[in-house]
């Protein structure tokens, strides 16, 4: 017998299949495994089918209810044991959630606050525009003029310059020296014009001067800036003219052969707050309070002659 063959016989020739016993599940793990798995799957399917087909008062439902009753104490005990841990975890979760929710709510609050401010601004602007519209539609509005309603877009950076910027300019027909008013009274005049913006010099500026007229007594003078920032003064009122405290001063609107006032007649300017005279002075000292609140100006109307 060749050597190789003897070796082959030594290994392969002696292969012996284990004797198959009469009970495969005891001796063959693979078979046993398959039997167990198949039995369990079939049992599951059987349970599933019966449970699904029977009514809620069926036997399997009854068994399940009884089983649930048996399991209930275990569940309650487990829940009770786990509650402190779950509460602790929940507390940390709540803290984290509260932090993120807090950030979200803060953002939402900022957004709502911004909207509320915008709404308030819009409402105030709307109210001012309504009042301005009521003014331009009324008989008080000077004849021979049309108006350009516009917003104040800038203010003078210092107290020395009583000027504001408006959001309308030459493209709207505005020129230098056009009067600017609100429904309360005279604001000033346009002193610089660009295409879409213009500069308005207020009555309270040192360079401003308007011919004024006492509405009641027809005493005339020149309205100029007063001693304090927002006050005015009716100057050049001779002592023979009568001006009393509380009198309303309006624009004189004079016209001569060669010249005419840039302001139309009858626009309210201010109300006299004090009247005095001294022997050493040729004129009366009339302090007055402007009708326009220059510090809260937002919407104005520029008066543009209709013939332009």
């Amino acid at each position, binding site marked *: 017998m060749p050597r190789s063959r003897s070796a082959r016989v030594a290994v392969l020739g002696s292969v012996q299949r284990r004797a198959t016993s009469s009970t495969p599940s005891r001796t063959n793990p693979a078979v046993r495994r398959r039997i167990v*798995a198949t039995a*369990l799957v079939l049992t599951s399917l059987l349970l*599933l*089918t019966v449970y699904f087909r029977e009514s809620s008062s069926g036997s399997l439902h009854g068994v*399940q209810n009884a089983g649930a009753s048996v399991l209930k104490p*275990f569940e309650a005990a487990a829940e009770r044991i786990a509650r402190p841990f779950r509460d602790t975890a929940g507390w940390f*979760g709540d803290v984290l959630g509260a932090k993120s929710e807090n950030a979200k709510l803060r953002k939402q609050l900022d957004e709502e606050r911004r909207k509320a401010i915008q709404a308030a601004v819009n409402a105030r602007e709307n109210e001012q525009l309504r009042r301005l519209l009521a003014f331009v539609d009324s008989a008080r509005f000077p004849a021979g003029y049309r108006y350009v309603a516009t917003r104040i877009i800038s203010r003078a950076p210092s107290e020395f310059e009583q000027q504001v910027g408006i959001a309308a300019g030459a493209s709207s027909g505005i020129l230098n020296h056009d009067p600017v008013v609100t429904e309360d009274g005279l604001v000033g005049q346009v002193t610089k014009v660009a295409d879409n913006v213009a500069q308005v010099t207020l009555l309270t500026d040192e360079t401003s001067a308007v011919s004024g007229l006492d509405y009641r007594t027809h005493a005339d003078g020149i309205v100029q800036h007063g001693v304090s920032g927002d006050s005015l003064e009716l100057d050049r009122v001779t002592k023979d003219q009568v001006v009393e405290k509380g009198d309303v001063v309006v624009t004189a609107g004079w016209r001569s052969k060669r010249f005419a006032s840039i302001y139309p007649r009858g626009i309210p300017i201010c109300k006299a707050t004090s009247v005095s005279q001294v022997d050493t002075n040729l004129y009366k000292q009339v302090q007055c309070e402007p009708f326009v609140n220059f510090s809260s100006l937002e919407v104005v109307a520029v008066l543009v002659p209709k013939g332009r």
Partner: protein
Amino acid sequence: MPGFDVTKTAALVFFAAIAEVSIFPGLHLLGGHPNVLLLTLVSIALLRGSIYGAAAGFGAGLVVDTANLETLGLSSLLLTLAGYWIGRYGETTGRDRTHAPFLSVAVVTAVYAVGALALRFLLGEPAPARAVLLDTLFPNIFLNLLLTWPVYTLSRRLLPFQIPERTREVHLLGQ
């Protein structure tokens, strides 16, 4: 099967199932919640083989369905198949592999979710596919993977590793 081993396995499955139905449903982390029962089942099946796995899955499913008053047999069917498959994997390819528990957990979590969804759909029960497959599946896999090692270690301490008997097709001389 040694009797004590069966008792320990049954107790482990029972308490894992009770914990699963009473503690973990209220514990939502990162958009999902861990399935401790599945982790325990994976551990048992890897440590004890496919027969233990299938039996443990069947028993666990019965407890879960009974406690939750759900369709009896639904969880049993899924967990039986899961336990059997993981057991077979542990007996063959996954034998002595360190990554076997993690791979098993990741795969079985996904397969269990899809299987439960499909069975519920077939039974006409609510089957929110989007919630199961998109919203919670990945957080669930992640959380299960996080808990795999502790649960597997605990299970291994309770059920010391026993090499399942190899299927012998050849008997060598002298044995």
